[in-house]
C-alpha cells in the first residue's frame, strides 16, 4: 500500500538507502581480501608442485615429472589472473558516500522531477510514474519504475528495479512485453546499463529514475523484444491478415509468420509449415515440408522420406511389373515352344 513519503518516514528511507551504499562500499574490501587469498593459495600450490618435482627428479620418475610440469604451467596462468583481479579491485572507482542530507535532497529532487515519489513500505520500495509514453505512434501508457531499496547493488539480482505498466498495452504476440525494451517488468537498459548501476550503488536515486525514463522514451528498433512495427500483431505473409501472438504460426522453411488458414503441418515431422512450402508426395499423396521431401536416387522424382525408405517410389513398382512382363513373355515363349513341340509331335504323328 502506498504511503506518503514525508517527515520521519522520508528520513528513514534516506537512511536505508545510505546504509545500502555503505554496505556496498565495504563489500569491495571483502572482495579484495578474497582475491588476495586466491593468490596466497596459488603460491602455496607452487611450493607443493616444486617439492613433487624434486621427488620425481630424485627417483627418475620422468612421466610423473611431466605431469607435475603441467601443474606448474597451469599455476603460472592462474597467478597473473588473480593479481589482475586484485589490481582491478584496488583501482575500482570508490563510490562517493552521500550523507543522509544528500540522499534526502536526492529524493526531493526526484519528487520535483516526476511530480510524485511513491513509497511502498511492505517491500521497502520507492517508485515514480512516467508520463504516458508513445513511441512511433504506438501508445504504451504510463509506467511505474519501482526501486527495491533492500536489493540495491546485489549483483546477481537484476530485479533491484522494475518497470511496471500501469495501463498495459502489451505487444500482441507477447503480453509480457509491455514496452519494446521491457519484458516481465524488467528493463533491458542497453547503453544506460552502466550509468544506472553507478547511480544505484552511489545512492543517486533521482539519476537512476531519470536514466530509466530516458530508456523508456527512446526506441531502439535494432534491439527490441518486439519491434513497434509488429506491436499490434504481424501480417500473415500469405493472405496479409493481422495476426496476434497465439494465432501466429512460424514457417521455418521460409522464415515467415502465417495465420492458421495459411498454415498446415508436415505429415512426417509435424512442423508447422506454410501452404506454399508444403509439397504433396506423388506416391502417398500426403503433404510434407521441404526437409521431409527427398529425391529418389533411381529416378530423381521428389517423394517423401517414408515412401523412399519403404521403396514405394513408382520407379520401384515398375520393375516387378517388368519382371512379371518378362515372366509372362518367358511363359508364352515356353508355351509357344511346347506348342511348337506339340505341333511337331502332332505333326510327327501326323507325319507318322
Amino acid at each position, binding site marked *: 500500500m502506498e504511503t506518503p513519503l514525508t517527515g520521519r518516514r522520508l528520513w528513514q528511507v534516506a537512511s536505508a538507502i545510505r546504509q545500502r551504499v555503505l554496505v556496498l562500499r565495504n563489500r569491495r574490501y571483502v572482495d579484495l581480501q578474497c582475491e588476495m587469498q586466491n593468490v596466497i593459495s596459488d603460491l602455496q600450490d607452487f611450493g607443493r608442485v616444486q617439492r613433487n618435482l624434486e621427488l620425481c627428479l630424485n627417483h627418475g620418475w620422468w612421466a610423473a615429472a611431466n605431469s607435475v610440469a603441467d601443474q606448474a604451467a597451469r599455476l603460472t596462468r592462474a597467478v597473473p589472473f588473480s593479481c589482475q583481479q586484485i589490481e582491478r579491485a584496488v583501482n575500482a572507482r570508490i563510490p*562517493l558516500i552521500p550523507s543522509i542530507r544528500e540522499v534526502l535532497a536526492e529524493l526531493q*529532487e526526484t519528487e520535483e522531477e516526476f511530480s510524485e515519489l511513491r513509497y511502498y513500505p511492505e517491500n521497502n520500495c520507492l517508485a515514480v510514474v512516467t508520463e504516458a509514453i508513445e513511441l512511433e505512434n504506438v501508445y504504451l501508457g504510463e509506467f511505474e519504475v519501482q526501486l527495491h531499496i533492500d536489493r540495491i547493488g546485489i549483483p546477481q539480482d537484476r530485479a533491484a528495479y522494475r518497470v511496471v505498466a500501469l495501463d498495459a498495452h502489451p505487444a500482441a504476440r507477447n503480453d509480457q512485453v509491455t514496452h519494446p*525494451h521491457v519484458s516481465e517488468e524488467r528493463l533491458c537498459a542497453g547503453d544506460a546499463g552502466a550509468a544506472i548501476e553507478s547511480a544505484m550503488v552511489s545512492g543517486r536515486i533521482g539519476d537512476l529514475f531519470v536514466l530509466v525514463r*530516458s*530508456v*523508456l522514451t527512446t526506441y531502439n528498433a535494432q*534491439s527490441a523484444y518486439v519491434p513497434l512495427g509488429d506491436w499490434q500483431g504481424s501480417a500473415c505473409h500469405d493472405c496479409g491478415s493481422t495476426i496476434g501472438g497465439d494465432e501466429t504460426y512460424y514457417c521455418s522453411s521460409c522464415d515467415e509468420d502465417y495465420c492458421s488458414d495459411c498454415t498446415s503441418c508436415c505429415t512426417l515431422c509435424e512442423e508447422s509449415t506454410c501452404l506454399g512450402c508444403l509439397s504433396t508426395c506423388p506416391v502417398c499423396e500426403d503433404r510434407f515440408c521441404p526437409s521431409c521431401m527427398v529425391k529418389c536416387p533411381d529416378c530423381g522424382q521428389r517423394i517423401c522420406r517414408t515412401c523412399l525408405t519403404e521403396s514405394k517410389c513408382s520407379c520401384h513398382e515398375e520393375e516387378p511389373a517388368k519382371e512379371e512382363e518378362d515372366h509372362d513373355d518367358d511363359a508364352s515363349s515356353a508355351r509357344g515352344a511346347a506348342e511348337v513341340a506339340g505341333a511337331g509331335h502332332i505333326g510327327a504323328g501326323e507325319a507318322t
Partner: protein
Amino acid sequence: MRILFINNDGAGFADYVEVAPNTTVEKFFSQQIEGGKTADYLIRVNRQPVPRDYVLQEGDRVTMTPTKIEGAVTA
C-alpha cells in the same frame, strides 16, 4: 576551482573536476560531452535547472543526464 561532476552518459561516473574560472555551463558541457547537444541532456546545477550562461562556482554539483538512451534486448 573544483566542482563535482556527475556524468550519466556512458559509465555514469561521479568525480571532482577542475574547471577554469568563469566557465559557463554551456562551455563545460561542450568540454565534457563531445559532439553532444544540450537539448538532448537534462542538465542540473545543485539539483536545479540553470540557464546555459550560468557561470560555474566552486563546489557546484553538476549533473548531465541524456534524455534519449537506447535500450537493448540483452543488457
